[in-house]
């Protein structure tokens, strides 16, 4: 299997007042197509920093990032945006749906930023992925009218609509009760079965069972556990 993501000797610093914090220390990482990677660590360990960096939302100070065989280390904002739009999907702990938009509009959004997708095609895609997460009947409602678990399922549909290579999930079950958490994890597991690469950050040890690769991160140092 080919590597979808490769990190080589990544270092990241946060500038403090008169010091700098070494947030990520010489991180090396290889993620293959179809992997379910779980990044474990306590809060402040640098796990979310690593995830954001992998998702091209954050920058790093040294090292090399190869995505899908292409060196994206020096990509500018527009290129990063395009890459995120086309190949990456994001799921956040707080769902992060846009409240002024309906469910359907939220799910459709990545397609709008992709551009040149016909109205009919967009509508079909929205319905397809809403159906996949089992919430098609909610499409004209607004996010605040839905429960947390439902909102997270909408966020998954939004992450999937551009048919990305990788799905980044930052504590996707962190704000949900255990039953709903299990539902969300079930969806992610099924996506992984369909060969979607999933990278998930969590501090919940129970979720390790879903992964085929686990990275433990402590004080900016990543150690492969599995």
């Amino acid at each position, binding site marked *: 299997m080919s590597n979808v993501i490769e990190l080589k000797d990544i270092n990241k610093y946060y500038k403090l007042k008169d010091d700098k914090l070494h947030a990520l220390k010489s991180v090396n990482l290889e993620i293959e197509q179809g992997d379910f990677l779980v990044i474990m660590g306590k809060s402040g360990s640098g796990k979310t920093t690593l995830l954001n960096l992998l998702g091209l939302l954050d920058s790093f100070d040294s090292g090399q990032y190869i995505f899908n065989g292409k060196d994206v280390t020096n990509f500018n904002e527009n290129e990063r945006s395009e890459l995120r739009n086309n190949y990456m999907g994001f799921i956040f702990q707080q769902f992060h749906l846009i409240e002024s*938009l309906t469910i359907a509009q939220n799910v459709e959004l990545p397609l709008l930023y992709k551009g040149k997708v016909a109205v009919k095609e967009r509508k079909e895609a929205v319905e397809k992925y809403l159906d996949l997460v089992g919430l098609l009947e909610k499409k004209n409602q607004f996010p605040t009218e839905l429960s947390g678990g439902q909102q997270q399922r909408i966020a998954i549909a939004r992450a999937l609509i*551009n048919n990305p290579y990788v799905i980044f999930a930052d504590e996707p079950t962190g704000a949900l009760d255990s039953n709903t958490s299990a539902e969300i994890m079930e969806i992610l597991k099924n996506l992984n079965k369909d060969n979607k690469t999933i990278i998930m950050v969590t501090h919940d040890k129970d979720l390790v069972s879903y992964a085929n690769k686990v990275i433990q991160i402590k004080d900016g140092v990543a150690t492969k556990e599995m």
Partner: protein
Amino acid sequence: MSVANLIKTAISSLKSHKLRTFLTMIGIIIGISSVVTILSIGNGLKREVVQSSEDTSANKINVYFQPDNLGADYSLIEPFTKSDLNSITRIEGVQKVEAAQGSIAGMSIVMSDISYFDKQTMVILDTYEGKSLNILHGRVMTEAEDNRRLIVLDYNTAKTMFENPEEALGKGVNLKGTYYEVVGVLAEAGMFSLTGSYSYVSEASKEGMGTEEVISAIDVYINPDMDKEAVFEEVKTELEKNHPNIQGEYALQDPQAITKVFEKIIGGLTAFIAIITGISLFVGGIGVMNIMYVSVSERKREIGIRRAIGAKPKSILLQFLFEAIFITGIGGLLGILFGYLFSQIVGIFVPFAPVLTIGSFIGSTLTSVIVGVVFGIIPASKASKMDPIKAIYL
């Protein structure tokens, strides 16, 4: 993101803040509606001026002679002759030439020497028919006396000839070899009144005076597609050629010139007031800018989410810019509507009808869009430069 989607996005986010959006719009509505009101009133006034002068035909120019010596006798100089009229007709672009009735449009006046024994001066003669004369001494001639040679002298002439104007009554004065009896003397002319400085005879007796009527000005009718100035220059050259030794200058009196000056003054004044009024637009614009700043910092998370799912900085910039333009654009259209209604109300109280021209409609719409761009661009650019990470995890 396509323009249609940008508009949709703008509508849905403005919908979620209806009251705030409306309050921000009020500034723009007031600004645009006052500008539109002023422009409509100004344009209405301008049209009134133009219409009232439309009876003077547009393709006619009036050429008159301005002697170097202002007291010169036109009958001696003869600035225009019958043969001039013929030669001018041959100039390209000239449709028709005719002698103007007097140098001041519409008056059949004639200049003449007048003498009483050794006293001599100049009078400007007009016909008394149809005029109301302000008599100081004596009387005006009657219709029955039309064939008699009677004259009503102007005050100054009477004074010059007879010292005491009243003494002129009953005296015979000599006009170009013909004697006229003075029956009346006019009151002194006011400073701006021309009529008080003429002397009056009857139409019939004027023709019998034995003097040939002097052409003091000509009307030249020009092809509408010809340049008036250019044709006038040719007419002038022709006249100067025909009258090589004349002491003075041929000049152009454009009947529309005065209208144009008025139009210019009204136009300038309207623009000036509109600009002053436009300051309120500036205040409205500041309001838009303020609310856009609030909106950007309120929606940091939304900006972050949009960036995460693939929005480019430019898309974010356009999104907020469109919102600002939407506020000012809708405000502008409402402003035009209110301005129009207000100017119609003003129209009830003024003697002319205010006009909303297409020009001021388009101008106002454009202005409101420009206000949106100008005051929206800084908050929008702030939004587009936001770091997605900081925007999401605030």
